[in-house]
């Protein structure tokens, strides 16, 4: 049985690697699809003298065939060398590392907030299906799904920072508590949208399990409410895990808007600036790194199913 699981994992890993390769090829190729002369684009705002253009062409090996350039870039990227930023001239790897902490803090906080609030909310809604509490939670989650992060962020900023003055308007603060204080509003902004999805999916998963025969049978055997709920939650765990794994992808989209709105110097803001500046090396690096992180989460989610659901283990073993 373990051997088959290993085979599955190797195949799954192989697929992920192929997918990432294809994606990186596309992202790298975008540089050549962008309008205008590549060398001029790569020069950025610098003076486009013939010497400068020649220098750029040599530096980026633009005279070589496309695939050669790509493999050259990829082999360096695999060692962590993503080249230098056109905009700042600094190594891309270092720029990303400097900003990683902030983004990780905001998204981690948002993830934590949304899971801690939304999973219980989804369970409660499912348990009270059709009642006012359920309708209120579902209504709230529809609004949460519909509200773009930047709009929610601006409204929160106006109400809690400008109006009430409870939270700082911009910036990151200094010291641990102050930093945390600065991150509350961005994290809440992200968590609202994220939590809405989690509420919806958790509610659906738990409600589906509550309709199952085994719940009626468990109740008929006199098992207490808490016990029955425990059984249901265990069975609803796989779809809820799936939704949480999907959320990780969503987080990266959302953090971009939150960082721009709250003027936080994180990876999202870096991506925005780099895209607007056509800072190709940074954009390529960021996109590929995010794709790797999301693929790894999906892989972890698959592993989690294996430990949670014996049926999946069994299907794989056959």
């Amino acid at each position, binding site marked *: 049985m373990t051997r088959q699981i290993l085979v599955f994992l190797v195949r799954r890993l192989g697929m992920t690697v192929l*997918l*990432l390769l*294809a*994606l990186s090829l*596309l*992202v790298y190729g*975008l*540089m050549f*699809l*962008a*309008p205008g002369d590549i060398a001029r684009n790569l020069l950025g705002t610098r003076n486009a003298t013939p010497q400068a253009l020649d220098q750029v062409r040599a530096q980026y090996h633009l005279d070589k065939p496309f695939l050669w350039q790509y493999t050259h870039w990829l082999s360096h990227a695999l060692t962590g060398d993503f080249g230098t930023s056109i905009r700042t001239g600094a190594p891309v790897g270092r720029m990303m590392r400097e900003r990683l902490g902030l983004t990780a803090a905001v998204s981690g906080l948002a993830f934590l907030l949304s899971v801690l609030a939304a999973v219980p909310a989804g369970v409660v809604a499912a348990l009270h*299906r*059709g009642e006012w509490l*359920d*309708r209120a939670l579902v*209504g709230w989650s*529809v*609004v949460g*799904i*519909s*509200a*773009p*992060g*930047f*709009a*929610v962020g*601006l*409204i929160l*900023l*106006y109400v809690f920072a*400008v109006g009430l003055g409870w939270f700082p*308007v911009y910036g990151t603060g200094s010291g641990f508590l102050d930093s945390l204080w600065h991150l509350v509003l961005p994290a809440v902004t992200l968590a609202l949208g994220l939590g809405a999805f989690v509420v919806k999916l958790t509610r659906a998963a738990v409600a589906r399990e509550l309709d199952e025969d085994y719940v009626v049978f468990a109740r008929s055997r006199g098992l207490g409410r808490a016990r029955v709920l425990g059984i249901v939650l265990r069975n609803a765990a796989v779809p809820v895990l799936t939704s949480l794994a999907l959320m990780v*992808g*969503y987080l*990266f*989209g*959302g953090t*971009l*808007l939150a960082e*721009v*709105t709250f003027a936080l110097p994180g990876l999202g803001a870096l*991506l*925005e600036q780099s*895209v*607007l500046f*056509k800072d*190709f090396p940074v*954009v390529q690096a960021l*996109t590929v790194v*995010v*794709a790797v992180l*999301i*693929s790894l989460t999906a892989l972890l989610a698959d592993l989690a199913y294996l430990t949670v659901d014996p049926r999946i283990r069994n299907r794989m073993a056959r």
Partner: protein
Amino acid sequence: MRTTRSRGPLAPALSALLLVAAALCAAAGTLIAPHALDQNLYTGVVGAGVDGHLLGTDQLGRDILQLSVAGARSALVGPVLVACGSMLLGAWLGMIAGYHGGVLDALVGRYTDLVLALPAVLLAVVVAGLLGGGYWVTVAVLTVLFSPSDVRLVRAAVLEQTTRPYIDSARLLGIRPGRIMIRHILPNIVPTVVANVLLNVAFALVALSSLSYLGLGAPPGAPDWGRQLADGRDLLGDNPLASIVPGVLIILTATAVNLLGDWVFERLDRTVAVR
């Protein structure tokens, strides 16, 4: 047969009303708000109620109310195009993959894996940004990025339908595959498709306004809710309504579309329900 529904018809009715109003603004924006783009750099930004500006003005002296009315067009046209376009693409690929299977199915599957490997907003920012942006480029990019979920949806629905006994019976009676597809499979997946188009309109509205907010959608100066938010971000002290109004409008419109989508799905699903 009447059954008690969890959500009354009030929410969908209000949603429909709101969307009709938004559609009117989109269609006849120049009539309702003829002075949307009139700038008055002399007055600049003023608060609500000043100089006959009910909701105040932005930093260019444009009236927020009129600008918001004019913004309805780019808030509706693009998202509707994205949702319908991606569904056309998705339905076509999904049917091919679901009905024929084999190599075609595998190819379509890899395509969806590839596009779904990154969040749509992020990918849209990168692609639209590097390709030079602009409203229509962004709409086109979003259409492609939204299609994989439609492909998967239609493919799953087609696969689920083709195993039904009545499809087997139709095949044995000698009914041609094309006719089975159009007459027996398509009508039964319509509720799913319609609901998903509506949900996608809401998502596309959110995505498109996000891109405009980042400066990648509507061009500078164009009436667009996302742009208004970006411009109004720095005016929270002088005229908060410059960003709050379009923000609330985006949230309301997207919520209305979502509610309507859920309602339509429930209704259509019941009429085509097997039992």
